[in-house]
């Protein structure tokens, strides 16, 4: 029988290796897998590459993972937000390598990884310094840049409801990178607010089919705020 729920955060994060590439869902404070990031800090893996839209703020979540010195390299579209002091300090002092990627290209590179598309041309960024050194080609009326799929070893995502097959729904703007990252990693771990019995989720409304999810931790908001 398929049952992807695991009883603890520690079991969810088991086996993450030093040097791994970790995809982390979320946009702003919405849809961030905070519990799993804490679990990753406790798990201890280091020399990580982290792929995320933002780089965290204050002293929690991604910022705390950065502060703990676990991240060697960040692939990110918008690391500098109000409160991203830890990122800024690490970056300016040269202790963190940064690959800055336009948000749409970041999303499309992740989507390509999950979809078995090794590379694609996009007009985004052509002629700007963000694509220095990349292959460029005129396609139609526009210069385009060749971008490559961005695979993760592990994806940490957050969702609203899960069943034991790993089917996921989201809430509001909580989708953001989560459904895009789930298919892009070899091991996808989800933290969810709610659980459903198999068959309770309408097949028409499942956003992430269970095939893309390996482990689930049930983490209701009440517990999060405790």
């Amino acid at each position: 029988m398929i049952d992807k729920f695991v009883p603890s955060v520690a079991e969810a994060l088991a086996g993450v290796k030093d040097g791994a590439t970790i995809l982390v869902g979320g946009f702003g404070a919405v849809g961030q897998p905070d519990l799993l990031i804490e679990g990753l800090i406790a798990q201890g893996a280091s020399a990580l590459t982290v792929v995320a839209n933002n780089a965290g703020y204050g002293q929690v979540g991604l910022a705390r993972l950065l502060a703990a010195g676990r991240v060697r390299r960040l692939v990110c579209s918008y690391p500098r937000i109000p409160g991203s002091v830890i990122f800024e300090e690490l970056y300016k002092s040269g202790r963190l390598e940064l690959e800055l990627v336009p948000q749409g290209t970041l999303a499309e590179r992740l989507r390509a990884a999950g979809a078995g598309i090794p590379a694609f041309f996009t007009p985004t960024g052509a002629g700007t310094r963000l694509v220095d050194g990349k292959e460029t080609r005129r396609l139609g009326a526009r210069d385009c840049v060749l971008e490559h799929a961005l695979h993760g070893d592990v994806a940490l995502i957050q969702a609203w409801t899960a069943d034991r097959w790993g089917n996921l729904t989201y809430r509001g703007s909580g989708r953001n990178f989560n459904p895009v990252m789930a298919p892009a990693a070899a091991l996808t771990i989800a933290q969810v607010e709610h659980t459903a019995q198999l068959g309770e989720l309408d097949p028409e409304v499942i956003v992430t089919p269970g095939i893309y999810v390996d482990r689930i931790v049930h983490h209701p908001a009440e517990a999060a705020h405790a």
Partner: protein
Amino acid sequence: MRDDILSAEAGPCRPRSREEMARRAAADIADGWYVNLGIGIPTLIANHVPADREVIFQSENGLLGFGPAPDEGMIDPYLINAGKQHVTLLKGAALLHQADSFAMIRGRHLDLCVLGAFQVAANGDIANWATSSNDAAPAVGGAMDLALGARRVWVMMEHTTREGEPRLVESCAYPLTALGVVSRIYTNLAVLDVTPQGFRLVELVAGLTAAELQAVTAAPILV
């Protein structure tokens, strides 16, 4: 020189406030358009759409058809826009993940994107994501996708920097966001089109002459 431009009232120059700039830009948005408003000043435009027009706003973090900020106590923590502000959903709204949202943006489906900018060049180049080529801690977000993807790109910005340096230039000195994409600019002093011949004046604020505008603009303005 066209009559309607010459006919600007005499009197002291009255630059537009941000709200006035937003109202002026909003007046040019047609019924039924799908529009993304960049972070910063452009977001003010949403408050000024004429009541008889249905305009659908997209936010690149995955909202199509979002509405105004919620009343106190009605906040859904799961509903934020790209500027990380709490919003509501209108009837008819749809939710998207990031790959679908940027497919919508890059795929030329938005009728309009209004962006803030540091500089716009006479050929339509825009620089709006980094202020120097050695930016200590850069961030780009969706700016490049929006600038390239929307069918029309308008810029809303102060006509000069705080130090009085022109933002409308022959060639951008700051790192580019996208090349040749801007078609219209709303500043506190004027509305201008970007044409194959360069900047062309559409409208001056009251009390300003075309010559005065040219004096704070670093590229020729066709009148």
